[in-house]
């Protein structure tokens, strides 16, 4: 049977891609952020995932306002990055796992999440930067990819409650997958930040701490706010926490925190990285 090993949650600020390209990881500005990945690398060495299910938001590479799906699941054989317009180097392509994508899609639709399906899908920095951070200097990605894009661009946005439920439906699909893969879930973006308007530069440490403290043991706590209330608390782009919430749902019921890093600022963002390890149900049963 497939096993969900846990989840990696991290910010995906474009400037991180520039820092990686320049080799700036040890510069004073960047080191506090990149050091947050040392425990991630250690954990991945033991967890050895071979599939990544990644919840992220597209920033105008694959999706435009002509067609804006609320939830979109990739079911492609391969996912390429492309020019995003602001000078980032091109990121490596991912091998897809369409058979698992369709299994997830079937479960989601059976659970009444009527998702958009994509047999062709470009993936942007929001997906590639977390992979670069998790598997630095890899010649090729050690994981096959199932990308799940959540609309955080055009309101009305899905509610945190709906995103958590979406993630939990994905967890059900992963638990029923007959393969022998080891699956890591990822949620990217956040934490608090705002790029636009006279409130640009907004950061909310208290709300970020609330999210990090509750995400593992009590993710339903994050559903007490509407998406609009989260924009108020965490900023226009802080709403990317929706990707973390969905990812948490997909990790399974019980997790334990392996690592946490929180650093202000990376670019305009309160940057954060967490690893939550999934506790197998049977292990819990033995402990009880």
């Amino acid at each position: 049977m497939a096993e969900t090993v846990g989840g990696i949650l991290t910010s995906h600020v474009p400037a991180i891609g520039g820092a990686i390209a320049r080799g700036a990881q040890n510069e004073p500005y960047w080191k506090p952020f990149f050091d947050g990945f040392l425990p991630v690398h250690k954990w991945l060495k033991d967890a050895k995932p071979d599939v990544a299910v990644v919840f992220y938001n597209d920033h105008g590479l694959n999706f435009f306002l002509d067609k804006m799906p609320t939830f979109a699941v990739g079911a492609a054989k391969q996912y390429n990055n492309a020019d995003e317009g602001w000078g980032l180097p091109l990121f490596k392509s991912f091998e897809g796992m369409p058979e698992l994508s369709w299994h997830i899609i079937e479960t989601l639709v059976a659970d009444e999440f009527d998702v958009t399906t994509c047999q062709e899908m470009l993936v942007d920095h929001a997906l590639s930067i977390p992979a670069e951070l998790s598997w630095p200097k890899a010649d090729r990605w050690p994981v096959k990819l199932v990308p799940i894009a959540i609309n955080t661009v055009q309101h009305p946005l899905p509610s945190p409650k709906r995103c958590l439920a979406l993630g939990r439906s994905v967890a059900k699909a992963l638990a029923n997958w007959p393969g022998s893969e080891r699956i890591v879930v990822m949620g990217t973006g956040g934490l608090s930040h705002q790029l636009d308007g006279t409130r640009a530069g907004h950061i909310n440490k208290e709300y970020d701490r609330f999210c990090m403290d509750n995400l593992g043991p009590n993710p339903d706590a994050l559903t007490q706010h509407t998406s609009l209330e989260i924009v108020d608390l965490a900023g226009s782009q802080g709403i990317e926490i929706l990707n973390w919430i969905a990812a948490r749902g997909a990790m399974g019921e019980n997790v334990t925190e392996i690592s946490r890093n929180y650093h202000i600022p990376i670019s305009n963002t309160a940057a954060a990285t967490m690893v939550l390890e999934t506790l197998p149900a049977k292990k819990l049963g033995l402990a009880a």
Partner: protein
Amino acid sequence: MATLNQSAATRKPEPHSRQPIEGTTIFDGHEAMKGYGLNAMCFSFNDAANRKAFLEDEAAYCARFHLTPAQIEVVAKRDVLGMIREGGNIYYLAKLAGIFGLNVQDVGALQTGMSVEDFKAKLLAAAKED
């Protein structure tokens, strides 16, 4: 090197009942319709040839995407808050900013009427608050 309009950055946002959060534009269907041409133009900047075409003849390029006169004006003035007021979404506007070599901290400074140094200092100060 193009410069952005500093005075525009200090303009107060107009009150709007659909916009409950101070200093923040909720990009909803209303904004998405209003800003469609402007955002479509910015989306086209994913392609290097389009970025070049914009720089070579800005007016002709704006016309191709049917920008409104107000949108053409705020783009010409490099007025970021004005672009947002005319329906621009920051995820797409960032691609326009990229053409001028501006990052999101530069854009943040422009919108808040601060110098880039002061804007960065404000972010650093946020780390120390409790």
